[in-house]
């Protein structure tokens, strides 16, 4: 059973992730594109559900948090891979990307890492179901 403090921390973190993803995609991005919008919508809903369930100590809270973390991690790894490959493509097409371009691409990747890679990994490790008794 997850401690009250851990549930509080992960619950708030999940809600913050939902806000970051929702605002980042639906407010900050200048155009709508269904693959990104639908993935962001699914992840936002899952994170809100997980956060709310953890904070309300619902019985299904840990399972919801694990599911949300797994989806977030999958999307995060995919996003960082796509960003890195895009940067490689740009540098292949244009040659030098310059200090400014490198900083922007790195910043975008680094902004995604805490919410979509690091946090889900920590949650997945922390929220592992206890090993079954041997026998």
């Amino acid at each position, binding site marked *: 059973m997850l401690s009250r403090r851990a549930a509080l921390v992960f619950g708030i973190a999940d809600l913050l992730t939902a806000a970051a993803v929702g605002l980042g995609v639906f407010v900050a991005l200048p155009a709508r594109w269904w693959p990104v919008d639908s993935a962001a919508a699914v992840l936002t809903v899952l994170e809100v559900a997980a956060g709310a369930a953890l904070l309300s100590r619902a019985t299904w809270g840990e399972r919801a948090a694990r599911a949300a973390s797994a989806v977030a991690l999958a999307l995060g790894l995919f996003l960082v891979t796509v960003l890195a490959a895009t940067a490689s493509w740009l540098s*292949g097409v244009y040659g030098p990307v310059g200090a*400014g371009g490198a*900083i922007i691409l790195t910043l975008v990747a680094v902004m995604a890492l805490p919410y979509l890679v690091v946090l889900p990994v920590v949650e997945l490790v922390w929220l592992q179901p206890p090993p079954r008794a041997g026998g």
Partner: protein
Amino acid sequence: MSARALGRLLVTWVLATAVACVVVHRAFALDVDEAQPREVIASVWREGRVVARAVVTRAGEHAASLDEAASASGATLVYESVVAEGPVVVWPEAALSLSFVPGRDGLSATFAGRTTYVTPDDLLAKQAYDHGITLSSMQITTGLDLPLALAAATEALGVSARDLLEHGVLRRIRVTRTVAGASVPRAITADSLDASEVRRAAVAMGRYLARGVDEDGRFRYLVNAPTNQTLPGYDWPRHAGATYFVAQIAGLTGDADVGFAALRAGALLRDHALLHCGDLRCIGEEDSPVADVGSTALAVLAFVELARTHLDDGYALLVPELTAFLRAQQRADGELMHLYDRRAKRPVDVQLLYYSGEAAFALSRAHGLLGDARDLAAAVRALEHLIGPAWSFFGSQYYWGEEHWTCQAMDDLWDRAPASTRETALEFCLGWQAYGRQLMYGPDDSPLDADGAYGVGPIVTPHLTPVGSRSEAGLATLEAARRAGRPGEELAVLDRQMRRSLAMLLRHQLPGRAYLFVDPTAIDGAMPGSEVDWQLRIDYAQHTGSALVRWLALTPTPTSVSAPGDNK
């Protein structure tokens, strides 16, 4: 999933991503071999159009069709050697649009065993670069205009664009150019920049604008350079700014044609844009209920310059009426209310970009001409506001905008402003220039000729006008810093920054590759929007030209001091 399994997954992901990045980079990077061009596309250009084309094996090779076309009057034979080629991503469309380096890369299209080329010169003449993708919220337009580029290929191949995209093969080509019978011009650099070159360029910009002033005094406001077509649109602030610059050049050269053009442009402002704003006079549109501070401030600059250069001393009589309007728009804290409601006869307290800086500079120039102490007091209060409360927020020490008039006002007021004000203003302006250096492209930061321009990343072609306007402010800052007795090392850094910017601007002055223009003499001396954007608006030449005039007027000091931090 156990922690160990998760760790293994992450390590695998890192390795796979690294491999993917290397593979993607190698697949799309070009292997340029200038010594062994794959093919050479020889084109004969006349009045901005290709009149003959053949694919030959080396630059300088003759072909009957080319020789005949090239012998015609006004024809230019150009060899574009394909020194590299590579694949492009055809989906999504945005990726295809971004697959070509502006001005450097062209397109080869193969369909049913036949290949045609759309060369960089073709794309420049059609103005297809940087017209592909528009991000309105960021005011960015980038990428290749695909319909325009593909139309050229499909026309030559006799297929539809859809067929070409679905069943053909598109590749990007990198070319180097050789113009038959022409020597390679010496590249202007920060080190080679000299006064005669700068003067020649500034005068050419002034003459370009002056040639465009019609008998009514109206400029050719916006011109599509390749076709030499005048495009719609007009704007009083830019008209006034261009008048100011043309008057500067008339004063510099004594050229009567340029002087008459400045007078015609000034007369248009005086006779058709001078309005009543309550009891005072302002500049604007007669049928508009609103007048603004920016138009009036720039008209003051123009009128002061017309009088100062003695093109027509009578313009000095108009200046007090206009500065009275500017002073009446000023709040107690020094800020200006930028609009005036002519029906309600009252100022509207809103702030728009540039206007306060323009007003501070205009009031200072007016005081310099006429000596009205009220103008000086208003200019100093506006400057104090601009470098104080107007730019004071969390993070304001790390960020500067594009406003380029404040530092010109600071320099102009240097001998007349209180010592504390000018020192604070100088710190502000030096900080802005230092910030600019961080955003400045170095020679190896971009595939484009961008050393000395401002921007980030390789995708957006740097625009030249911000370089010109920042140089106006930077040179004003340099002059003020010299008068303030700042250390040589500090001056050298700024001097180098300005030289790099001015050299870059001069390298892009038109006509450059004259054969791509219907009428190269018509656009001789003009400044384009960017290396590949050849629409010409009057303020492009004005900002760059005024910066060049400032550079010519700088207090001469040795420039041999090494520039610490000049690592680009």
